[in-house]
């Protein structure tokens, strides 16, 4: 048994919030360069060039890549041999988010109740926290700030087994077609297959933690991802929806077993600012 004081999580979460918002991952930068080389639209190439310039500027000026610094979606893998001491775990994560968003000059985008009052909480809390219990005595924290524009284009559909893989592909491609220029293309498309209603959505979200230079380890799904990506990039939406070939940089699938009556499919749309940073304690 390893004791970890929850107060030690605070500075880690704070740094992850700031770093994720300032420093774009190399995988995204390289992928955009790759697509820029073969983008047919002149406007499209120019837009991709400005995105690359923006990532550089953000890192140099220590400013957030996008003004929408997102909901602080936080994934925590807790080793089952860890004993958390020293206070409330959830409050510690939120304190890290609070400090990161205040001290990092990140935008506070959370409102307290979603419908009636919509008053800003002024410190970007609460974070959305997912915990998994895993073997070992370490804690892995991943902060994936998620912007509202792309999140709004996401959807869960309870499909029928008769719809088959073709039906799933059509649904995913159609969801992106209907999103058009709204989610800040080029996007990354997270697809959650199976589980139940809420697990499919969480799978889609978690799929977005993969790097763009990593293949799906399951060749069956890697093939489907490739087919979806090709169809999405044939839609013509292009960078920022202004027309072109580069609509999505990648499609990521995660799947789980499901009920004999169900075939849940979730699409979580991620803008080009595919931000996530991790640390192990």
């Amino acid at each position, binding site marked *: 048994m390893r004791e970890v004081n929850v107060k030690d999580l605070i500075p880690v979460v704070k740094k992850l919030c700031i770093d994720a918002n300032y420093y774009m991952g190399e995988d995204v930068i390289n992928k955009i360069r790759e697509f820029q080389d073969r983008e047919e639209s002149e406007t499209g190439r120019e837009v991709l060039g400005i995105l690359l310039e*923006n990532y550089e*500027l953000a890192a140099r*000026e220590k*400013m957030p890549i*996008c*003004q929408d610094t997102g909901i602080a979606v936080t994934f925590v893998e807790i080793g089952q041999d860890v004993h958390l001491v020293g206070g409330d775990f959830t409050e510690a994560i939120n304190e890290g988010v609070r400090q990161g968003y205040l001290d990092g000059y990140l*935008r506070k985008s959370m409102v307290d109740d979603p419908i009636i009052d919509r008053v800003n909480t002024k410190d970007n809390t609460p974070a959305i926290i997912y915990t998994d219990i895993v073997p070992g005595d370490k804690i892995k924290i991943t902060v994936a700030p998620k912007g509202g524009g792309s999140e709004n284009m996401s959807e869960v559909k309870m499909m029928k087994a008769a719809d088959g893989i073709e039906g799933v592909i059509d649904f995913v491609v159609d969801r992106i077609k209907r999103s*058009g220029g709204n989610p*800040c293309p080029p996007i990354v498309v997270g697809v959650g297959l199976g589980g139940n209603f809420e697990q499919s959505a969480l799978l889609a979200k978690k799929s977005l933690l993969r790097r763009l230079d990593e293949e799906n380890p399951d060749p069956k799904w890697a093939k489907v991802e490739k087919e979806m990506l090709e169809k999405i990039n*044939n839609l013509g939406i292009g960078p920022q929806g202004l027309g072109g070939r580069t609509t999505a940089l990648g499609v990521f699938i995660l799947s789980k077993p499901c009920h004999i009556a169900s075939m849940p499919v979730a699409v979580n749309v991620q803008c080009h600012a595919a931000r996530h940073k991790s640390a192990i304690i």
Partner: protein
Amino acid sequence: MADAIYLTTPLNDNDLQQLKIGDKVYISGTIYTGRDAAHKRLVDLVKAGKELPFDIEGQIIYYVGPAPAPPGKPIGSAGPTTSYRMDPYAPVLMDVGLKGMIGKGPRNQAVIESMKKNNAVYFAAIGGAAVVVAESIKEAKVIAYEDLGTEAIRELKVKNFPCIVANDVYGNDIYQEGVKKYKK
């Protein structure tokens, strides 16, 4: 893309009529910020026949909720937000003099019709290029609705703010035309 067009606010009808979808435009002068919550308040004022917190005639509203200004900067990262959420409000503001909107993503048919009727234009800024945009903003001050935080209305002094004409006064829409051109 053809050569860039340089515009200064407030916009006049000649400025607006020369613009075509796809034109690269650099805007200088004063522009105002506003997104969901501020638009609701502005439209409520118009409907109640009350005065707006700024003179909207010939002006541009930029759909943005900026990040806080770090020390030594006039504003934090300040890229556009998605525009369709302002579609229910935009025609009301164009009817009282608004001539330009800056945001990202397509507008609905009612907004496009209102742009034709009112000789107004919608410019697309590049979503997620928030530091590049912030570099063109030289001054920023809150002029209304400070309680809304990032959603307050700000008066911005901009120099060569980069954007692209997405809807012109002739009813053309780059989001439809661009996709048609590259769809396979």
